[in-house]
């Protein structure tokens, strides 16, 4: 694709913060077309300040932000609106607008005082609605939407604004797992298919690790580490920043205190994985040998377990019964 991975937004020695408080300093970051970047860091380290600064709401202390070929602070609000669109955590004050009305507001930077949509505008809206699968919701009022639906509507609105850059502040907060994954998939698809440069401030480490092309990791020394997620895992940066307790980042699992006996687990596939999961949660060590032996069998999508303990053999049909039997 032409123009893929060209730089859309770049910061030069950017120092941000408030009058007497430097929040982050000496940032030299690049946001490229077609890239999904997750902005991560502890609470209060400056994610919002950074988003505010690169969206032009707040002036930097020093250094500058370039959007395309323009310097952000010399652009007027309409020019910025045509380049950068936002999805924020704040909710609209009204519930009385329809989904269509909200989405069409994305065209405001291109419309005159009477906010009349031209047919070209309507086509753009239509495309976004189809892309994000909102056709059925189009004439629903805002107050009837679920949090996840509302978030999709706000993303559609941002998409209709047609900026090359999309900045999102915690788009998956307050959502359940299904919606979280769906939203992240959607954003990833927009980055790839529409060639957008997308920056997401988020706390969802697990999703970010799997979806982001890059992480901007705010360390606790007012710097931002800019790298691909895997490198940040392996070099321990993520551990340093978040100081995880009980979560093993390299395996992506919660760590358990292992104090129980050794268990020899035989089997494969999902049955093996989830049995292991349950046993580890109970504190057993799983290995190739042990005084207890468990065999996982799968027959026509039904699982059963054979437990050998002290010479006794027992067959069970659920993991719960299996755990009881071991005790």
């Amino acid at each position: 694709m032409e123009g893929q991975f060209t730089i859309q937004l770049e910061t030069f020695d950017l120092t941000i913060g408030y009058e007497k408080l430097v929040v982050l300093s000496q940032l030299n970051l690049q946001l490229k077309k077609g890239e999904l970047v997750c902005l991560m860091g502890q609470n209060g380290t400056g994610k919002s300040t950074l988003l505010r600064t690169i969206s032009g709401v707040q002036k930097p202390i020093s250094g500058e932000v370039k959007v395309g070929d323009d310097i952000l602070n010399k652009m007027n609000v309409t020019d910025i609106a045509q380049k950068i669109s936002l999805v924020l955590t704040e909710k609209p004050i009204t519930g009385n607008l329809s989904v269509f009305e909200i989405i069409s507001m994305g065209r405001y930077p291109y419309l005159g005082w009477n906010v009349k949509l031209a047919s070209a505008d309507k086509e753009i809206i239509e495309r976004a609605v189809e892309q994000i699968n909102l056709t059925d919701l189009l004439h629903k009022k805002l107050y009837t939407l679920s949090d996840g639906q509302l978030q999709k509507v706000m993303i559609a609105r941002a998409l209709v604004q047609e900026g090359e850059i999309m900045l999102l502040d915690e788009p998956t907060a307050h959502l359940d797992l299904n919606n979280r994954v769906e939203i992240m998939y959607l954003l990833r698809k927009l980055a790839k298919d529409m060639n957008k440069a997308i920056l997401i401030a988020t706390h969802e480490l697990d999703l970010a690790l799997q979806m982001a092309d890059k992480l901007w990791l705010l360390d606790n020394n007012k710097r931002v580490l800019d790298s691909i997620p895997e490198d940040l895992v392996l070099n321990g940066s993520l551990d340093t920043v978040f100081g995880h307790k009980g979560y093993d980042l390299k395996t992506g699992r919660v760590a358990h205190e292992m104090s129980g006996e050794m268990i020899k687990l035989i089997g494969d596939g999902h049955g093996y994985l989830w049995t292991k999961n349950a046993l580890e949660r109970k504190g057993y060590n799983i290995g190739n040998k042990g005084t207890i032996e468990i065999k996982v069998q799968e027959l026509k999508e039904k699982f059963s377990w054979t437990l050998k303990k002290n010479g006794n053999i027992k067959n069970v049909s659920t993991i719960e019964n299996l755990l009881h039997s071991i005790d």
Partner: protein
Amino acid sequence: MQLQIKNGSHLTMKNRLILGILLPIAVILLLILNISIGSVSIPYSALFESLFTDSIKTSWYNIIWQFRMPKAITATLVGAGLSVCGLQMQTLFRNPLAGPFVLGISSGASMGVALLVLSGSIIGGFVHYLAVGSWVVVIAASLGSFSVLMVVMMVSIRIKDSMSLLIVGLMFGSTTGALVSVLQYFSNAQEIQLFMIWTFGNIGGLNWEEITVMFIIILLGLLMNIILIKPLNALLLGENYARSMGVNIQKNRILIIISTSLLAGSITAFCGPIAFIGMAVPHIVRVIFKTSDHRVLFPASIFVGIIIMLMCDMVAQLPGSEYTLPINAITSLLGAPFVIWIILRKRNIAKSF
């Protein structure tokens, strides 16, 4: 679905009918009804004759053209102006309880009038001939609201968020209210009565000259709303979203304040404080039209505002009697139960807001 978007207008067929036909007809009918009611009964035939010719008996002609028409026109201007003000303030401050006077405009005006009327006993009693609606009172009220407004403007240029502006406006309201109390404390009964009568509101005291001035100011304030449709719609998503969609918040906030002060300021100056209309009408309109789009809300608020003001005025006339009740009391007396009924029916005002 293609059809849905391609033909999508901001007005549904039903709303188009209400806005384009039903409301204008209601306004015209109520205007005629309003003029026909009064302590002197004038037959409709004579009424129409005196509206379009001058061949009718002079006392009826005079009653209609000197008293009833000016009052009806004033009611129309007041209803339209205050409703639009209320709408602007509710959207700007994202607060369903906001009204035309949250910026301290009416408290400023009342302070001006209080200084004029009540300082009589301090400076010397020269103001006893003052009537509500006379130019001296109008100028005092205008100066009062203008001075409060200047301070609010200066604050609004300095501060970034509208919530602080709302609080500052309310603080000014309390301060001027306290000043007025102090003035009342040092005044004699006659002066206090004069001032009280001003606070009752009066839409029947204006002559054609004053109405012309008020008409021009209100027209100006209403016309400004044409350029405020887009920013106010965008503000429904919150200030940060509005800014991200290319709306200059600072500039538009000042335009909104100017428009509101032209409308609410001139109305308060000429007619005294008139409560409730500004706060209630936008809610009624949202319930009728089921939208928050200001392209619909602006014209609809103007129509509904006029209708309610004309009705309130007719009730205040106490048809069949010689008494006229204070209009400021009637607007609240009739309006409050109505809004409570709407809230009970809708259960949750936030949904329709």
